[in-house]
């Protein structure tokens, strides 16, 4: 029971080949688009790599780039094949190559779907990675004299100003770390000593935030120190004041940015998948339709199908073939070892 059989006249075959050639070029361009989307996503992830703890999410742009390149190659081949299909002699040389080509193309095309699924599945991993990365960034903010961490201050400041966010979850994260280096604290001053002694770890904690948390849209000059102290500032109530500092946490800002990116890329990848599958289906029809065509009689009517037998039967046949291949190999190895033993015995007896 052939799967999705269609009859093809010569005219229909010619039209199929022409349509397929155009479709292969369209699919090639969409492959280029997928590649460039992968490159763009990777550069965006690398830009903020300093506040990311793990690299798990990078598998998504890497797969996109790989599939993009593969699809360009596949579609160039497909274009060539359908150009050659007009000439039976030239088409004959593709015959043995076509079935493995189909299997490979199907694999790469399903990888597109896999990439899309991964981009949703890895979102929690991204959030976790950002949480740890930002926590470390805030912790090492003050270490501008420690090699390896001296750019953390700059990174965090630029991040907060660019994404209009403050701290990990919100601005209160800054109250729990010492973000002023000891070099700039006057330990002879009583106030400083009291503050340092007031907590177990001996850190200089205060209800102040760096200047990069300041919101330029605030009508009043920025209040960065004594934020929770209403009496320290005239006409100020920290509980009702919303415009003074950025309300959003940087983790939330980054996660929503990247999710937004991947949600935009998702439909694009899906449409590329559709185009690629339709290209492969048309190529399969062309291949099977060309089977019945002889060099002398190009105008004969032939049949095209997706699968010669039903799906279940084809899968069983494939399993049998695979088993036979494995047995054949095993048998060959056994024969060879038997032969060498026989030779050795023959040699020994002589």
């Amino acid at each position, binding site marked *: 029971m052939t799967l999705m059989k269609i009859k093809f006249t010569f005219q229909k075959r010619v039209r199929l080949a022409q349509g397929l050639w155009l479709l292969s070029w369209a699919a090639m361009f969409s492959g280029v688009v997928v590649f460039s989307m992968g490159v763009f996503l990777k550069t965006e992830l690398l830009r903020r790599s300093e506040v990311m703890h793990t690299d798990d999410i990078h598998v998504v742009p890497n797969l996109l780039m790989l599939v993009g390149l593969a699809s360009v190659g596949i579609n160039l081949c497909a274009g060539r094949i359908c150009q050659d299909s007009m000439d039976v002699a030239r088409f004959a040389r593709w015959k043995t190559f076509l079935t493995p080509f189909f299997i490979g193309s199907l694999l790469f095309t399903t990888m597109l779907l896999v990439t899309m699924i991964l981009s949703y599945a890895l979102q929690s991993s991204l959030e976790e990675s950002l949480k740890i990365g930002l926590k470390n960034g805030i912790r090492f903010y003050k270490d501008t004299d420690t090699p390896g961490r001296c750019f953390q201050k700059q990174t965090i400041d630029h991040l907060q100003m660019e994404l209009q966010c403050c701290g990990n979850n919100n601005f209160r994260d800054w109250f729990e770390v010492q973000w002023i280096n000891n070099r700039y604290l006057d330990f002879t001053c009583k106030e400083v000593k009291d503050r340092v002694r007031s907590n177990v770890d001996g850190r200089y904690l205060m209800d102040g935030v760096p200047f990069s948390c300041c919101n*330029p849209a605030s009508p009043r000059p920025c209040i960065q120190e004594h934020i929770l102290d209403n009496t320290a500032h005239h006409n100020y109530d920290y509980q009702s004041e919303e415009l003074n500092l950025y309300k959003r946490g940087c983790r939330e800002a980054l996660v929503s940015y990247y999710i937004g990116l991947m949600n935009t890329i998702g439909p694009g990848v899906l449409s590329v998948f559709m185009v690629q599958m339709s290209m492969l289906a048309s190529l399969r029809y062309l291949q099977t339709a060309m089977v019945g065509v002889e060099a002398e009689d190009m105008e004969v009517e032939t049949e095209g199908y997706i699968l010669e037998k039903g799906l279940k039967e084809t899968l069983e046949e494939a399993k049998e073939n695979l088993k036979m291949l494995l047995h054949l190999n095993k048998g060959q190895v056994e024969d060879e070892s038997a032969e060498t033993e026989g030779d050795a015995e023959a040699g020994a007896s002589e």
Partner: protein
Amino acid sequence: MAVLKVTFTKTKRDKLAQVLWVLNWVSVITGVTLFSLGLFLKVEILKRQEVMSDDIHPVPNMLIGVGLCACGINFLGGKICYDCVDTTKFLRWKLIMLPYIICTFFFTFCILVGALMCCFMHHELERSLYQGLHNAMRYYKDTDIPGRCYLKRTVDMLQLEFQCCGNGGYRDWFHIQWISNRYLDMSKSEVVDRLRSNIQGKYLMDSVPFSCCNTFSPRPCIQHQVTNNSAHHNYDYQTEELNLWQKGCRQALLEYYTNIMQSIAIIVITIWLFELFVLTGVRYLQTAMENVVQLGDPDSESDGWILENSLSETARYNFNVIKNLGKCCHVGDDPNIDVPSIDPGQNIQETGPSRQIPLPK
């Protein structure tokens, strides 16, 4: 003695016409480029309009106008060159071609003027920025007055984006009150003292807004009591360079716009040279085609030139033409007008040979 005479065979003429047709279409694209450069400059200036006081729009408007004209002129030129392959079609354009060439020649000067304006806008721009920034900083605190309520945000974003502080430097902030009276506690003696310490009653201090902070500084930003070394541990404001942005916003913006305009000027001068080159080709084509028409045989060789006579002769000739045109207006002296000599007893005779004003070729 023709200037830069070149002999053209029929095939050479045809090839010249075809090449010029393509080049004219390329010139249409360069006209579009000019237009978009003018538009880009206009948008950039409009973006920072709040910190500019004067109108420096003539420059981008000029580029936009010149770009549009260039598109039109070169489109017409392309049409003319396309028709020049055929002698009969050329006759349609014969009378228009010379005025077209003269107009285009003067138009290219407009392109050059556009480029030069870009180079010499520096002084005007600086003045405009100085005044604009001065006003913006003065009204920084007025976030409750309609019409000025966005200036604080504008100035803050400007200082953050261009990494600059104040007009000429950060000290400009020390001379103005940038904290609104709404946020000053007038009951405190310190505030009242500061207000009384100067004639105008302004709350002045040696502090700057947060947007002046330099992100590359290794220490947390010192915005308040900037010139007071004892207020901060291990701090010397005279040697400290990384704490605040050292550049003034006027200089930063000036550099930014100067860069843009220099690039635009280079592109416009290149386009001007290209236009002159195309115009030269069109002139050769025109003279060659006219000579062919004069000779009568469309397939014969003909000469093309820039000017029929040498430069000085042509200049003298045209000068005379202009002088005679001027004399036309004076009725008494014109020798062309028939003045019958009144002589008693004699017939009225015509005097003087009639002369025609020669038309330039």
